[in-house]
C-alpha cells in the first residue's frame, strides 16, 4: 500500500497551482486543499515515513505520533477556516503565501530530522513576511522588514545550532534535545524567538497588527504554535521555559491595557496565551504536555476568531484603533457576537473552549507545587479577561458611539467566524473529542462545581473592577501613541549606528582631508621628490581614508531607509553569519 503524502506537500504543490484558476473554480480549489490535507492526515501511518538519504544523513518528512498529529489536525483545521475567511481576496500572492505558510507549519510539525525542519522553518518565515507586505502600505513594508530581520536572526541561530548539533552528535534526527551545550542553546534560541519568548517577542506586536486582514488570521495560528510544538518535543521540563512562560503570561497584559490598536491588543494577548503553553512545557509532566496541546488547539481557534472579527471590523470600516471605534454592535451584531464568543473563550469562561484547556495547565502547575508560578498564571487569567475579554469587544462594539454604521462583513467571512465560534462553544461544552487526541491519556474533569465557581468568581470580579474603573473614569483612556518594547534596544542602537556613519564619520573624514592638504603643502617647500610624495600621500589619505567613510555611509544607507533594498540587508546579515559559521567550523573541526 502506498503511504499517504506528507501533508505539507499537498499545501506546497497546491499553492503553486493557485494562479492557474479563476473565479469560482479558484475558490473551490482553495477549499479543496485543506480538505485533502485533512483526509490525508487520517491515513498517515504511525512512525516515520517518506525518509530519503541526504549526504550521510536522512531526511524524514513524516514523523507521526500523537503529539505531531494533534498539531497537524489543528493546523489543517485553521487553514480551512482561514481559507474560507479569505475567499473574497482577489490577490493571488496572498493565497499562495497563506497556503505555503500553512504547508511550512505542517512541514515543521511532521519533520523528523533537523534539516527538513530548518527548510520548512525558513519557508514559514518567508511566506509570512509576504502576508505583511501584501498590505501594501509604507508602514507594513517597514514592519515586514523588521519582522524578516528578527526571523532571519532566529533562523540563523537555529541553523548554527543544527550544524553544531550534527557535528557533535553525528545525527540529524531529533526528539528530546535538552539544554546541555552550545548547539542546543542555539537551537533553543531559534525556537524561542518563534515562540515569542521574552525578550524575543517584540516582532509579534510589531508585525501582526500591520499584516493584511486575512493574513493576520494565519499568522496568529501558525508561527508561535509550531514553535510551541517543537519546544514541547525538544525541551520539555526545562526550568527556563517554566519561568519564561510565567513571565510571558504576565507582562503583555500591562501593554494590552494601554495599547490602542485592537489587533495589537490581541497580539499582546497572544503572547500571554503562548506563555501558558511555554509554562506547561517548562513543567513537562504528562498532564502539563496534555495541557499545552489542548491549549494550543483551543487557542488557535479562538485567537483566529478574535483576529477574524477584529479583521472584519478593519475590513468594513478601515479603522482598528480604539479611539476611532465604538458602538458597532448596532449594525454588526453577528460580528459582535462572534467576537464575544472568542473573548469568552480566551478568558476561559466555563462552557467555552479556553476553560477546558487552560485548566489542564494550571492544574499541572498546582500539582508540581510551583506556588509563585501558580499565582502568576492566576493573575494572568484574570488579566486576559480584562483586556482581550472585555476591552476588545467593549471598545469596538460598545463603549461610546463612534457614529460608524458599517455593514456586516461578506458572507464568506461570516461563515468562517461562525465555524470558529461554533468550535469554541462545542469544545467548551463537550471537551471529549479534544481530550481524545491529546498525547497522553486524560484523567481530568474540568467541570467540578468548585472549579467553575472559582473561575467565575475570578472573572466576574475582574469584570467588576473594570466596570468600577470605567465608571469612575480612572481606566486609562485610549490614546494614540507608540509604546516602547524590547525592540527599542535593537532599533535605537541601529539608528545611532547609521547616524554615526553619516555625520561624525564623514566629519572626521573632512578633518583628515584638510590635514592631508596642509601636510602636502608643507612638502611643496622642499623641491625634491615632493611631487611623488604628494601622490603617494594623496592616494593613502585621500583615496583610502577619506573615501572609506563615504563608502561606509553609502553602504549603510539601505539600512537607514528600510526601503526596497532588502537584498542588501540580507547580504549584511549573511556576511557576519558566514564568518561566524567558518569560525565555528574551525573551532569544532
Amino acid at each position: 500500500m502506498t503511504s499517504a503524502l506528507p501533508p505539507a506537500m499537498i499545501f506546497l504543490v497546491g499553492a503553486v497551482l493557485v494562479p492557474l484558476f479563476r473565479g469560482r473554480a479558484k475558490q473551490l480549489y482553495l477549499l479543496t486543499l485543506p480538505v485533502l490535507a485533512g483526509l490525508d492526515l487520517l491515513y498517515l501511518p504511525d512512525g516515520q515515513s517518506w525518509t530519503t538519504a541526504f549526504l550521510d544523513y536522512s531526511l524524514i518528512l513524516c514523523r507521526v505520533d500523537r503529539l505531531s498529529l494533534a498539531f497537524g489536525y489543528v493546523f489543517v483545521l485553521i487553514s480551512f477556516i482561514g481559507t474560507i475567511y479569505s475567499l473574497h481576496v482577489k490577490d493571488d500572492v496572498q493565497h499562495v503565501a497563506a497556503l505555503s505558510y500553512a504547508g511550512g507549519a505542517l512541514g515543521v510539525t511532521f519533520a523528523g530530522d533537523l534539516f527538513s525542519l530548518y527548510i520548512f522553518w525558513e519557508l514559514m518565515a518567508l511566506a509570512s513576511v509576504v502576508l505583511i507586505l501584501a498590505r501594501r502600505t509604507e508602514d507594513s513594508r517597514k514592519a515586514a522588514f523588521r519582522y524578516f530581520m528578527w526571523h532571519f536572526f532566529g533562523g540563523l541561530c537555529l541553523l548554527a545550532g543544527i550544524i553544531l548539533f550534527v557535528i557533535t552528535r553525528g545525527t540529524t534526527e531529533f526528539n528530546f534535545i535538552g539544554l546541555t551545550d552550545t548547539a542546543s542553546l542555539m537551537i533553543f534560541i531559534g525556537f524561542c524567538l518563534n515562540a515569542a519568548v521574552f525578550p524575543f517577542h517584540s516582532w509579534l506586536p510589531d508585525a501582526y497588527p500591520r499584516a493584511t486582514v486575512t493574513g493576520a488570521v494565519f499568522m496568529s495560528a501558525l508561527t508561535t504554535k509550531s514553535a510551541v510544538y517543537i519546544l514541547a518535543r525538544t525541551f520539555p521540563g526545562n526550568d527556563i521555559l517554566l519561568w519564561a512562560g510565567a513571565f510571558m503570561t504576565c507582562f503583555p497584559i500591562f501593554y494590552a491595557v494601554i495599547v490602542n490598536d485592537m489587533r495589537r491588543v490581541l497580539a499582546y494577548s497572544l503572547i500571554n496565551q503562548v506563555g501558558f503553553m511555554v509554562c506547561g512545557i517548562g513543567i513537562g509532566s504528562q498532564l502539563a504536555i496534555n495541557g499545552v496541546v489542548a491549549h494550543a488547539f483551543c487557542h488557535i481557534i479562538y485567537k483566529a476568531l478574535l483576529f477574524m472579527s477584529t479583521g472584519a471590523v478593519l475590513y468594513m470600516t478601515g479603522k482598528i484603533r480604539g479611539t476611532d471605534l465604538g458602538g458597532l454592535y448596532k449594525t454588526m451584531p453577528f460580528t459582535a457576537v462572534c467576537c464575544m464568543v472568542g473573548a469568552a473563550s480566551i478568558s476561559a469562561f466555563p462552557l467555552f473552549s479556553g476553560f477546558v484547556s487552560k485548566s489542564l495547565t494550571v492544574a499541572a502547575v498546582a500539582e508540581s507545587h510551583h506556588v509563585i508560578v501558580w499565582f502568576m498564571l492566576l493573575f494572568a487569567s484574570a488579566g486576559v479577561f480584562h483586556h482581550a475579554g472585555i476591552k476588545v469587544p467593549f471598545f469596538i462594539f460598545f463603549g461610546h458611539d463612534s457614529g460608524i454604521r458599517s455593514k456586516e462583513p461578506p458572507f464568506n467571512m461570516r461563515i468562517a467566524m461562525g465555524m470558529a465560534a461554533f468550535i469554541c462553544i462545542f469544545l467548551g461544552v463537550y471537551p471529549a473529542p479534544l481530550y481524545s487526541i491529546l498525547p497522553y491519556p486524560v484523567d481530568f474533569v474540568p467541570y467540578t462545581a468548585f472549579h467553575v465557581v472559582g473561575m467565575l468568581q475570578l472573572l466576574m470580579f475582574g469584570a467588576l473592577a473594570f466596570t468600577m474603573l470605567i465608571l469612575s473614569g480612572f481606566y486609562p483612556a485610549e490614546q494614540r501613541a507608540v509604546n516602547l518594547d524590547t525592540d527599542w534596544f535593537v532599533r535605537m542602537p541601529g539608528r545611532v549606528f547609521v547616524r554615526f556613519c553619516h555625520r561624525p564619520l564623514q566629519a572626521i573624514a573632512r578633518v583628515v582631508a584638510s590635514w592631508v592638504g596642509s601636510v602636502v603643502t608643507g612638502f611643496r617647500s622642499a623641491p625634491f621628490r615632493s611631487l611623488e610624495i604628494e601622490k603617494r600621500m594623496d592616494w593613502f589619505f585621500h583615496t583610502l581614508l577619506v573615501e572609506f567613510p563615504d563608502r561606509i555611509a553609502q553602504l549603510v544607507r539601505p539600512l537607514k531607509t528600510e526601503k526596497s533594498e532588502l537584498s542588501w540587508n540580507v547580504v549584511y546579515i549573511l556576511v557576519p553569519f558566514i564568518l561566524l559559521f567558518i569560525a565555528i567550523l574551525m573551532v569544532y573541526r
Partner: protein
Amino acid sequence: MKPQKELTFLDSERNRLKVRKYFYVSLVVLLIIDFFLHKHVHFSWEKAPCFYAVYGFIACVSLIFVAKLLRLLVKRREDYYD
C-alpha cells in the same frame, strides 16, 4: 435603498442600568454559592471564603494601576520611530 436596521438596546440609560443590575446580582449569587461548595483544593488558601473573587478583583485593579505607571515609562509620540 432601504435604511439599515440598527440595534438600539443599549442607547437608553434604563437598559444599561438593567444590564448592570443583573451583573451585580450574579456577583452576589457567586459569593453566596461559595459557602455551600465542597472544595477539593491543591493549596490551603483556596479554601478561604471567596478567595478567587478577592484575588480576581485585586489582580485587575493592580493591573490597571501598574499599566498606568507603565504608560508613563513607555509612551512616546506616535511618530517616535519615524
